[in-house]
């Protein structure tokens, strides 16, 4: 159990942590995120007693951190630092065995139980095959796993990780983080993360540091909001929900080049999530984008809202109303190009096609990302297919990729044939 109460820390005149208070304990994987210089690493250093706080209290199992001897503390807490520099050519096994020092001390001999513990630790981190190699002759990722194994060998009740996956490849990142997650059922794990998606995916709770204080703390879906991320990191992101885990997924949005919008109005008729990438791409390219008519329970609707794209909408499961059709017709009057995703058509959304059929726009691009050969897509008894065929005959441009759709839009707007 670890508790921080109003912890403040400064290096001389420079304040590094302000009013930091939280508790964590066995069974929790707590993530610490924040921009560079927000105090993440310092927070870990304060908890591990490398730098003393200038104010406030840090408690481990209700005991002041300062009351522990270094040996006692090392039995409670293990730390995996951001980077490690082995001074000499110790073997991997020797280094993992150093993790037993808190229990062995200076003089006791290494027992079978110690050997069994380090064997398991090396197994968990997948470094058993490196046992006899020198820690200066292995890769950065391997060394990182050796240091994690050394921390596991300490059998701590609190494990602090400072960017534990910084030097690992994707597969190793996953296996290490899964192992940490598993471990967090029995002990408290606190990890600093650079990658917001890993924090969102693995952590039970997240602390978002900004400007040396806690900006937000709580479950990933409550902390990782568009606004919080904009405040902390100064970028616009799209936050979506991973449909399998329910955890937030964050993708950064690229800003328009030169920060200025291009001339050109583009309307997107989409649905079923097929237009999301297109909406992102078009707004990133700097066009004035509009969308709809969309049902408010459509994921494309949520994407449009997140991007701040004006969108004509209908209540869930309702067909496109006459009012919305009128609205769409008005928008299309002002629009240069319409991009249509060739999704599924039924009685609910056919209204969009009817409006489009009679609209006078400079060009129409039809994005057909999926090869739908043989798959049922027209549930309007042939009406939708007929309209699409008609659009095609009148010069609508068929494309397969989002990027080619955006390129086609650009060509139409700039008047290039």
């Amino acid at each position, binding site marked *: 159990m670890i508790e921080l109460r109003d912890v403040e820390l400064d290096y001389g005149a420079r304040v590094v942590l302000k009013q930091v208070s939280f508790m964590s304990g066995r069974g929790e994987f707590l993530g610490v995120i924040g921009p560079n210089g927000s105090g993440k690493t310092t927070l870990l250093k304060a908890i591990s007693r490398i730098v003393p706080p200038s104010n406030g209290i840090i408690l481990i199992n209700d005991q002041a951190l300062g009351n522990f*001897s270094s040996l006692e503390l090392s039995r409670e807490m293990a730390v995996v630092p951001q980077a490690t*520099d082995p001074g000499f050519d110790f073997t991997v096994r020797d280094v993992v065995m150093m993790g037993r020092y808190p229990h062995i001390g200076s003089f006791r001999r290494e027992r079978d139980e110690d050997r069994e513990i380090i064997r398991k630790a090396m197994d968990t981190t997948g470094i058993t095959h490196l046992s006899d190699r020198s820690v200066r002759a292995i890769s950065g990722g391997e060394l990182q796993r050796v240091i994690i194994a050394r921390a596991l060998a300490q059998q701590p009740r609190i494990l602090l990780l400072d960017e534990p996956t910084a030097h690992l490849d994707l597969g190793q990142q996953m296996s290490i983080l899964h192992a940490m997650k598993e471990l967090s059922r029995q002990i408290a794990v606190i990890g600093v993360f650079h990658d917001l998606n890993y924090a969102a995916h693995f952590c039970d709770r997240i602390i978002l540091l900004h400007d040396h204080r806690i900006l937000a703390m709580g479950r990933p879906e409550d902390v990782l909001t568009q606004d919080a991320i904009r405040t902390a990191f100064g970028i616009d992101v799209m936050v979506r929900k991973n449909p399998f885990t329910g955890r937030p997924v964050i993708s950064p949005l690229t800003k328009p080049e030169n920060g200025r919008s291009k001339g050109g109005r583009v309307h997107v008729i989409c649905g079923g999530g097929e237009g999301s990438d297109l909406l992102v791409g078009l707004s990133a390219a700097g066009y004035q984008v509009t969308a709809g008519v969309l049902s408010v329970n459509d994921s494309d609707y949520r994407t449009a809202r997140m991007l701040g794209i004006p969108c004509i909408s209908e209540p869930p499961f309702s067909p496109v109303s006459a009012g919305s059709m009128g609205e769409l017709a008005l928008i299309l009057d002002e629009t240069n190009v319409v991009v249509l995703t060739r999704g599924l058509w039924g009685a609910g959304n056919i209204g969009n096609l009817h409006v489009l059929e009679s609209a006078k726009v400079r060009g129409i691009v039809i994005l057909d990302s999926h090869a739908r050969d043989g798959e049922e897509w027209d549930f309007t008894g042939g009406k939708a297919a007929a309209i699409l065929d008609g659009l095609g005959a009148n010069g609508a441009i068929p494309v397969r990729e989002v990027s080619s759709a955006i390129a086609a839009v650009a060509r139409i707007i700039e008047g290039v044939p």
Partner: protein
Amino acid sequence: MQKRGLFLVLLFLAVVASVLVCTAIGPAGTPFLGLAGDETSSIILFSVRLPRVIAALLVGAGLAAAGVVMQGLFRNSMADPYLLGTSSGGALGAAIAIVFLAGAFHWVLAFAGCIAATFLVYGISRKGGRIPVEQLLLTGIAVSMFLSAILSFLMYTAGKSLHQIFLWLMGGFWSTSWNDVWIGLLIVPASLSLLLFSRELNIFAFGEEDAFHLGVDIEFLKKALLLVSSFITGLAVAIAGSIGFIGLITPHLMRLVIGPDHRVLLPASMMAGGILLLFSDTLARTAGNEIPVGVVTAFFGAPFFILLLKRRYRQ
């Protein structure tokens, strides 16, 4: 582990053999080969050669042990026992004795100079109860330079004693007696006491913060190691002046042979350092006129060291 144990036993046998061989060798002849079994030869063997042989062995062992500790503490195989101003402190102490006291107590002042220099460096580096290692290193260099400046001034104004100071600076065992051996024996328990810290020294290879996370009382460790190693270096310098390269090369060489584990590295380096210095001194006293042993260790040590470095870079 068994292999390492065997290596230590072999090294010990080598120490015994070296003592026998080096006591037997000398300009006056070898037992059974020209050195008669009379009283003179027994004086040569037991009052001249043997104390010198044992003193060289002890000083070599001490310098190597201190070298192991310094390299471990600074996580740098370029560190040596004189890093924290010990040799300049010792030299200044000896020079003061030579210039102002006609050489009396020169070994006492040399020892005092070594210890004083270390404490000066330690005191300057101390910051809020802690001694940051980098601070220690830089202060050591600065204090060394400062003490050397005073030494140079003394030498410049020394006049007739200059030659004596110069001889002392190069180091040697020409005046070694049994008294030096008795003092030098203190090196053995002091060096062996360093073995108590061998696990901590191993962990220290990963730096102070890691060592702290693993439960090592780093501030105590640094204090204890600095105290003991400066004591050892002080004794070595007091007996034989500041002899270079033994404390630098021996730990390096032993690490290549048996690895960095201080539980083995420390005793192995002590024995190897003793043997190296013993053979250097034997060469120094038998190669024509007595040459300062510091010249021998540097002459053979430096090229050998370069060879080691080249080999390491190639790996």
